[in-house]
């Protein structure tokens, strides 16, 4: 006799959205989270009156979130208060030039005209084509199951306009950027987003080139911190009996006769269920929770072939003064070549990069309640990506050195007097991410993402190796990020409903 219909391992956005939709459809569902916080990378912790976001810093492309609430039969506005952030980014180039991109496309055209008049036509062509593509492809690609060739063909048959955009999927991110823009500063301002998907511009898919454009549909910050998104979904699903247990670590998934039939917890307790959903990294799910001896050889070869996503240390700072910033996000950026250099000559060689490439997030601009009155919060990543084992060293040993080096960068490029105003400061290294999120090597986007590891070629939402096992989150479908992980929950729950509804 099963204790539950659905056991969901991990309370990241994928696990929570899948669990909530299972509960809504009448499945007795429990989500088991090993840490004391829900949300995975999309979470917020509190210390001395400041609230710091662990990883994710905004939500763009809100359609998957709206779809989750629509499927729950609830109004998103009743659970999550989204504050629009405009401008989208403020940029600081290595030579000290500053400019901002507003949400409005026409206003952005004027900004580009001032910096690089030669790129105005390229920007107009890119934004006209790209906005049309984003609107048409949203449901077709992001919210459609794409686990098999028949499903992909069905998606194309339903949305034939997708064919027109297929060449973009086959190009690289830098190929798309260089096709439309000539000026290196403009190129840099739309190329670094490749790292938002976990790949340098020379390896990232051309479709990543549209991340920057999609942000012109609006970027939003949830009041109360990023944790308000997973908490809002849990609250919305509470009417359906969704149970969430934090501090509950799963030791392994119980497999009997090639079927997932439950989980064994760290304390030895066994919990049985009709099916199991894992929101953990797919490599952890298959290699640690299922274990190689329970996998067919082809599955072992497949899962071993994936590289984990890049790690990215984060620094969280409380300030007793308002920072001299212009936007929710400030980006210190360089050329496309510099971005590729960070990947090839630093990250891949185990060296912490020393070139300027930082993202500074200022959440108290959107929500002052995150800090004591008159105080502010900055969450920033500096010189990312950083290697998991820098030159064979250990992040626990170099944490203090890294914090000071990152502050030096922040002082040099963004806030010259920041050290005078710091009241509190924390660092989350790749090792911390690995411990907190059970993410191998602290990878923040699950698995490395390019065209050979997305959609059809990413671990499927419905496992073919183990019956009654489902995967959700950044290791599946379209990879990491708030919209994509929420979309993975919609897709995984649709398979579950089909199989067990």
């Amino acid at each position, binding site marked *: 006799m099963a204790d539950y219909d659905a056991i969901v391992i991990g309370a990241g956005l994928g696990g929570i959205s899948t669990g909530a939709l299972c509960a809504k459809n009448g499945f007795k569902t429990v989500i088991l989270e090993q840490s004391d916080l829900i949300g995975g990378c999309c979470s917020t912790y509190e210390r001395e009156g400041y609230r710091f976001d662990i990883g994710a810093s905004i939500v763009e492309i809100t359609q998957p979130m709206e779809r989750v609430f629509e499927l729950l039969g609830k109004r998103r506005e009743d659970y999550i208060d989204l504050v629009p952030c405009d401008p989208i980014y403020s940029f600081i180039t290595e030579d000290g030039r500053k400019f901002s991109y507003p949400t409005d496309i026409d206003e952005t055209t004027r900004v580009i005209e001032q910096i690089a008049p030669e790129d105005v036509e390229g920007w107009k062509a890119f934004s006209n084509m790209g906005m049309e593509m984003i609107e048409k492809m949203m449901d077709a690609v992001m919210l459609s199951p794409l686990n098999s060739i028949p499903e992909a063909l069905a998606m194309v048959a339903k949305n034939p306009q997708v064919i027109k955009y297929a060449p973009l999927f086959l190009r690289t991110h830098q190929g798309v950027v260089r096709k439309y823009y000539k000026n290196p500063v403009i190129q840099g301002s739309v190329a670094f987003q490749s790292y938002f998907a976990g790949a340098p511009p020379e390896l990232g898919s051309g479709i990543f080139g549209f991340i920057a454009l999609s942000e012109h549909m609006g970027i939003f910050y949830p009041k109360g911190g990023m944790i308000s998104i997973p908490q809002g979904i849990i609250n919305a699903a509470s009417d359906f009996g969704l149970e969430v247990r934090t501090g509950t670590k799963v030791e392994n998934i119980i497999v009997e006769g090639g079927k997932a039939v439950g989980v064994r917890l760290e304390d030895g307790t066994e919990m049985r269920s009709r099916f199991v959903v894992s929101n953990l990294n797919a490599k952890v799910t298959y290699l640690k929770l299922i274990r190689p001896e329970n996998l067919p050889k082809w599955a072992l070869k497949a*899962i071993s072939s994936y590289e984990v996503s890049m790690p990215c240390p984060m620094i969280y700072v409380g300030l007793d003064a308002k920072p001299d910033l212009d936007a929710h996000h400030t980006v210190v950026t360089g050329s496309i070549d510099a971005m590729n250099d960070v990947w090839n000559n630093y990250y891949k060689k185990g060296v912490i990069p020393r070139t300027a490439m930082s993202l500074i997030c200022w959440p108290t601009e959107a929500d002052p309640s995150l800090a004591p009155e008159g105080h502010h919060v900055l969450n920033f990543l500096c010189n990312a990506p950083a290697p998991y084992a820098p030159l064979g060293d250990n992040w626990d040993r170099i944490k203090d050195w890294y914090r000071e080096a990152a502050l030096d960068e922040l002082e040099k490029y963004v806030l010259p007097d920041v050290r005078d105003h710091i009241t509190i400061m924390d660092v989350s290294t790749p090792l911390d991410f690995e411990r907190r999120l059970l993410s191998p090597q602290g990878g923040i986007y699950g698995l490395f993402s390019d065209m*050979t*590891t997305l959609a059809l070629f990413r*671990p499927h939402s419905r496992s073919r190796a183990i019956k009654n096992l489902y995967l959700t989150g950044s290791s599946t479908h379209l990879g990491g990020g708030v919209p994509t992980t929420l979309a993975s929950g919609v897709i995984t729950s649709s398979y579950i409903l089909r199989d067990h509804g």
Partner: protein
Amino acid sequence: MKSKIRAALGVALLAGAVAAYFSASESTRRYIKHLGKQVPYLPYRYLI
């Protein structure tokens, strides 16, 4: 005769591909190498 033409075409194609590879930018070569490493796994990845 036909087999000789086929072999010559094959050699020409291979030579063209090698020439294109070496005349490509370093960045493009890294991309091709990256794809070369990933493609053999696609059938397995499709299944899982």
